[in-house]
C-alpha cells in the first residue's frame, strides 16, 4: 500500500490485513525508495537535523553513504552515536526531532531520516568492535534504552559492564511496553546480543533494592547507572476504578507483549474484551488501543483535550485511525459503572478548552450537564507514569525532586559520587531516544572522569 504521507513510500501493510495479527505494520523502505529518498538530502553543512537528534547521529554523513550504496558504512556511521539504530528508526518521534529541523521540510516535506536509519540498521551487520578491558567496572540498573545506551558506550571503551534487570527479559519498555507490531522483540534481542558480544554481562531476575542493595553496587563498581524508568502507573481516582476490566496500560501491554498473552501457548491470561475504552492519547494509549483491537475488541479512545493536543506520534494516530479505532475527543471519564464486579460502562463528560496552563497547553474544563455513558467491558488507563520508588527508597541519601524523579547535574551525575542516572527515572516521562541521549551523556561524563576520553 502506498502511503500519501511519503513520496518515496515505505511499505506499510494494509489495515484490514494487519489488524489480524501482531506482525510489524510498517515494513520500511526497499533499497530503491531508500536510495531515491537519500538523494533528497541536501547535505547541509550546518546540519540542523543533527542538532535535533538527542544523541547527535551524523545524519547527512550516513544518508550520503546510503546514496552511494554503502549500507554497511551508513550503519557504522550511525553506530558511532546511536547504539540502537533498529529501535530508533522505528520508535523515535522524528517529526519533532531531526525531521522537524530538516531544511527540505520548509518547502515540501522533510527527508524521511528515521526510515533511512531503519534501512541501514536492518540491512547491514556492522557492529562496534570490542575493546580490550581497562579494568574499570560499571553496574547498570535497568536494561531499558537509557541503560543499554550507557552500557554500549562504556563497553565500546573497554569498561566491564554488568546490567541488572528485574524482569526475565532484557530491554525494559522496549519489550514490556512497545507492541510487537511496532517493534519486533527479536530486534531488541539482537541488540542486547550485540552488547553481550561487546562484553556486557546481563543478569536477569535481579531487583536492585530487593535482591541486591544499591549500596553494595556502589561499593563494588567504579560507576553505577540508574535507568529504572518510570514504571508506576497512574489511575484517575474516580469511582469504580477497581472493577474487573479496568487496567493500567502497563498491565495490559505487559501481559500481551512481555508475557505474549496473544500467543495461545503462553500461560499468561489476558482480558478479552468486546468493547474497550482507552483513556489518554499518548503513544502508550495508541499502543493499547491497537493491541486491544488485535485482541478482538471494538476500540474507542477518549481524550480530555482536542486533536491538536494529542501527544502521540502522528504516524501512530494515523495507523490507529486506519485500523478502525474511534476517537472521542474533549471527553473525560468521571465514573466507571459495573455489574457483578465487572465493568459494564463508563460515564464521561464533555470538555472544552480554557486558558493555557503551566505547560502552555490549554487546560480542559468540564461542560456541566454533558455526562453520558459509553458501554464497554474494558477500560485501559493510559494516563502516563511516574518513577517507581522501589529503588530510590532503598538507596540511602540519593537526592530526588518533584514526583520522585532522581536529581542529576548536567553530566547525568546524581548527588552520590560515581552514581549516574538517566531516562524516565530522571525526566518522569519522555522518549526512547531522549533516554538513550541521557545514558550516553552519563557514559561520556564517566569516561572523561577516568580520563579515557578527553
Amino acid at each position: 500500500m502506498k502511503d500519501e504521507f511519503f513520496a518515496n513510500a515505505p511499505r506499510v501493510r494494509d489495515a484490514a490485513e494487519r489488524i489480524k495479527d501482531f506482525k510489524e505494520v510498517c515494513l520500511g523502505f526497499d533499497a530503491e525508495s531508500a536510495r531515491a529518498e537519500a538523494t533528497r538530502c541536501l547535505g547541509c553543512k550546518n546540519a540542523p537535523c543533527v542538532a535535533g537528534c538527542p544523541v547527535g547521529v551524523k545524519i547527512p554523513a550516513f544518508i550520503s553513504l546510503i546514496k552511494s550504496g554503502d549500507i554497511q558504512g551508513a550503519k557504522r556511521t550511525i553506530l558511532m552515536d546511536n547504539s540502537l539504530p533498529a529501535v530508533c528508526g522505528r520508535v523515535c518521534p522524528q517529526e519533532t526531532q531531526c525531521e522537524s529541523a530538516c531544511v527540505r521540510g520548509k518547502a515540501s516535506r522533510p527527508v524521511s531520516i528515521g526510515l533511512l536509519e531503519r534501512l541501514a540498521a536492518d540491512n547491514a551487520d556492522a557492529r562496534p568492535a570490542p575493546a580490550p578491558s581497562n579494568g574499570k567496572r560499571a553496574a547498570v540498573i535497568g536494561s531499558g534504552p537509557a541503560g543499554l545506551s550507557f552500557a554500549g558506550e562504556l563497553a565500546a571503551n573497554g569498561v566491564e559492564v554488568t546490567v541488572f534487570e528485574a524482569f526475565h527479559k532484557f530491554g525494559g519498555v522496549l519489550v514490556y511496553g512497545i507492541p510487537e507490531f511496532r517493534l519486533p522483540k527479536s530486534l531488541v534481542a539482537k541488540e542486547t546480543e550485540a552488547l553481550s558480544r561487546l562484553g556486557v554481562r546481563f543478569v536477569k531476575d535481579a531487583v536492585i533494592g530487593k535482591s541486591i542493595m544499591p549500596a553494595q553496587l556502589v561499593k563494588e563498581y567504579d560507576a553505577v547507572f540508574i535507568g529504572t524508568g518510570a514504571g508506576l502507573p497512574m489511575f484517575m481516582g474516580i469511582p469504580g476504578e477497581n472493577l474487573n476490566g479496568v487496567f493500567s496500560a502497563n498491565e495490559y501491554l505487559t501481559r500481551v507483549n512481555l508475557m505474549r498473552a496473544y500467543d495461545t501457548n503462553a500461560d499468561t491470561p489476558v482480558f478479552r474484551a468486546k468493547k474497550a475504552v482507552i483513556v489518554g492519547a499518548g503513544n502508550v494509549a495508541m499502543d493499547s488501543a491497537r493491541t486491544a483491537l488485535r485482541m478482538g475488541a471494538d476500540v474507542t479512545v477518549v481524550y480530555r483535550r482536542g486533536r491538536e493536543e494529542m501527544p502521540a506520534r502522528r504516524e501512530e494516530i494515523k495507523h490507529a485511525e486506519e485500523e478502525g479505532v474511534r476517537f472521542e475527543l474533549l471527553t473525560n471519564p468521571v465514573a466507571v459503572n459495573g455489574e457483578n464486579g465487572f465493568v459494564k460502562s463508563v460515564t464521561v463528560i464533555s470538555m472544552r478548552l480554557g486558558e493555557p496552563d503551566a505547560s502552555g497547553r490549554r487546560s480542559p474544563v468540564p461542560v456541566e450537564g454533558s455526562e453520558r455513558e459509553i458501554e464497554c467491558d474494558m477500560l485501559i488507563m493510559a494516563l502516563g507514569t511516574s518513577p517507581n520508588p522501589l529503588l530510590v527508597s532503598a538507596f540511602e541519601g540519593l537526592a530526588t525532586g518533584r514526583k520522585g524523579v532522581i536529581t542529576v547535574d548536567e553530566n547525568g551525575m546524581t548527588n552520590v559520587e560515581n552514581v549516574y542516572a538517566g531516562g524516565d527515572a530522571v525526566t518522569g516521562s519522555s522518549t526512547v531516544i531522549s533516554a538513550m541521549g541521557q545514558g550516553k551523556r552519563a557514559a561520556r561524563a564517566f569516561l572523561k572522569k577516568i580520563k579515557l576520553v578527553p
Partner: protein
Amino acid sequence: MKTFEIVRKRALSPNTISYELYAPLVAAACQSGQFVILRVDEDGERVPFTVADYDRAAGTVTVIVQTVGATTYKLSKMEQGGVLADVVGPLGKPTDLGDAQNVILVGGGIGSAVIYPQAAALKNAGRRVSVILGAKTKELVINEEGFAARSDRLIITTDDGSYGRKGFVTDALKELLDEGGYDAVFAVGPLPMMRAVCRLTGGYGVKTIVSMNSVMVDGTGMCGCCRVTVGGKIKYACVDGPEFDGSLVDFDEAIARSLVYRQAEQEHYCRLTGGKR
C-alpha cells in the same frame, strides 16, 4: 547446582508440594513474609508465592504450592533436579508484628505454609505463640509436627471433622479471644477466611495482620494489577504489602478482583490437562 534448580521436591499432602529452589540472590536477602515470583518455563506466567523457608548458607528458598491451576499443574510435573525459568525476589515487605508478646497465628489451607516461618521466628524471640490450622480434611493438614515444636499451643480444625476439631478456624479463634490476653493475630488463608477472621477480631479490638495473595504480573509496583483498597486508599499488594492491617482491607472488593481471570485460567488448565480436573 544450577540457578533456579529444584533441589528438593516433597509432597506434603495429596495436592500440596514443597519445592526447595536454588536461588542464591533471593536466599541471601529474604525475610519472612516476603514472596518470590516464579516462571516455570519460557511460556510460563509470573506467579507469586510466599517464601515458606530459606537457607542462606545453601542458597535455597522453599515455596509450598497447592496444585490448583495451569501453572501449579505444570510445576507439579517438574522433577527434583529440574530447572525453572525464573525465580525473582525477595519481593514485598517483611512481616511486621511489632513487639507483640502473645500472638495467635491462623493458617487456612495453604496459608499454613506462610505462617510457619513466623511461628519459628516468634518462638525464637521468646514470644508466646498459639497456632490455629484449618484444613478441609485430615490429609490436607500441613506440617503438624513442625508447628507443634514451634508453638505453645496448637489447635487443628477440619471442615469435615476428620481430624482435630470439626469446624472453622474462627470457632477456635473465638475461644482463644474470649480467654483474652492476646495482642496480635496473624491470619493467612483464602480471602473469605481472612475476612471472617478480621470481622471476629474487630469485635475484640485485637490488631490483625493478613497477607493478600493478589493476582500479580511484575511484582515491583509497575502494573497495578494487585491493587487493593486499604483504609479507603489504593495500595499495591506487591510493594506496599503483601501484609496489611486486616481491619482496613476491603475484602469484598479483593474477592471480586480475585475472579478476574478465573474463566481464562480454567480454559487454559483444561487444555493442559486434556479436560480432566
